[in-house]
């Protein structure tokens, strides 16, 4: 059973395409795409134990860091580059996104929305960095070093002239409408291409 943002990506990837999954973890999405959509999948993952698990599943995964290693991939060598729940952990999300749009003809990006109402309430009334089901880490041990909201991301895309070809929003596992997404959605998934 795929996590709901991964399920959205999996549904919207064309069969038989070539994908690079950046921050692929133990290769769950890659395996699903390989098995159900005949996708030629490659992965990049920072954690060696995850890489070992993915390779042991028969996937082609390279241990590396999105911040430093995407530069090694040639232009346009994938149909899709996927970055799920990883954007907010990179040192330079802007440069990572530039590389994704250079390497892939399209890019899927999913991230937790830091403007969702629960987080706003926790922040406003608790006066502390929010710890939620979606963002369970404390301020000192969180890998999420660049929190982003849906509206932040949209204006970022607009500034860079990136074209949005699809957008999906989630609360828990349920899809949400586009309206009020920045307030209501816990997760966002964007399909992008270079403008």
């Amino acid at each position: 059973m795929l996590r709901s943002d991964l399920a959205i990506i999996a549904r919207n990837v064309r069969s038989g395409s070539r994908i690079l999954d950046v921050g692929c973890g133990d290769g769950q999405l890659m395996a699903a795409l390989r098995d159900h959509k005949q996708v030629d999948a490659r992965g990049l993952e920072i954690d060696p134990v995850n890489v070992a698990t993915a390779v042991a599943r028969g996937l082609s995964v390279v241990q590396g860091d999105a911040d430093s290693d995407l530069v090694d991939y040639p232009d346009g060598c994938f149909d899709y580059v996927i970055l799920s729940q990883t954007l907010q952990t990179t040192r330079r999300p802007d440069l990572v996104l530039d590389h994704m749009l250079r390497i892939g003809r399209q890019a899927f990006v999913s991230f937790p929305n830091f403007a969702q109402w629960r987080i706003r309430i926790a922040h406003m009334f608790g006066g502390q960095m929010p710890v939620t089901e979606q963002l369970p880490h404390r301020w000192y041990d969180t890998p999420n070093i660049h929190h982003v909201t849906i509206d932040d991301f949209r204006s970022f895309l607009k500034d860079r002239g990136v074209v949005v070809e699809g957008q999906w929003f989630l609360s828990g596992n349920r899809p949400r409408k586009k309206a009020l997404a920045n307030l209501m959605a816990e997760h966002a998934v964007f399909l992008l291409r270079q403008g």
Partner: protein
Amino acid sequence: MAKSMQGDERFGLDKRVRLLGPVRLESGAEFAPVDFAYETYGSLNADKTNAILICHALTGDQYVASTHPVTGKDGWWTRMVGPGKPIDPARHCIISINVMGSCMGSSGPASLDPSTGGPYGMAFPVITIGDMVRAQAILLDHLDIPILSAVVGGSMGGMQALSWATLFPERVRCAVVIASTARHSAQNIAFHEVGRQAIMADPRWNNGAYYGREAPASGLAVARMAAHITYLSEAGLTEKFGRRLQNRPDGSMGAKSFGFDADFQVESYLRYQGLSFVDRFDANSYLYITRAMDYFDLAEPHDGVLAKAFAATKARFCLISFDSDWLYPTSESRRIVHALNAAGAAASFVELSSPFGHDSFLLDAPEMNRIVDGFLRAGENL
């Protein structure tokens, strides 16, 4: 169903064969006839898709998973090869060949030159890693093995696996390259040169013409000692020996001799490594094989662009490095991965953590086994 290999004299333990060849060498020369010493484990299946070639390192041999005839020790990679292991004779037809230039039965400087009746010595041609691989291809033709489901090797074995995938892209389905590199660095060459000079400085070396006389054992032992340091890590040496002193022959415990005996345990260990090596290895082979490794640069025939070397390959690659390996450090594996990505090849890569330096690939490494097992099985399911 696997066809029975019984009665087929070409397959089994401790096999020898002389083939006409020739091997067309990179130097431009041709070498013939070619002797091969090799072993096979398991049976080739009916559609000949389960062959795995295991390539050995500098001082390795064909005895991957069977007892070494000189040392009486177990095969050098029984942790990886054997029943229930990632490379399993129940599933695979495993082939391991003593490399050309070596001294365990395949053609090398100690072999007899049919044209003179005496050992080749320095008349043996200088060979390359590619030449070793081209020779192996001749033996595989003799064994009627058209396709290798995998070529697997650590260190120099990894260089051969890479060369197989680039020289015979149509014959290799996947390559496992462990603790290896696509080129010898200046530092790698420098250490080898120390070893070669130690051998050639031994008066018994006699320009390579020592067969039937005393071998240049002191020179070879020093060469081995210097090389052995590069196979370990500082942390490993510190953990194993630290500055601890040897017990003296007179029974005194751990005192300095104020002389040049092996006071430190690490000295004693290295001396032992050197001395035990000369019983099983030929000094001229050491010269020829280190030369082949120094000449190794996979990118050289492709204008220095490593990605071009992989342009024709359809093989899947699995690379593993170890964080304490300073002989062929992780950066060299990453360079290969970068080139494979640029060439669009299917590549996997992991750096594993181990305190034991370059030799880690020969030691117990469950994570390495898990990765190799999964990687090979994925190929078998395709």
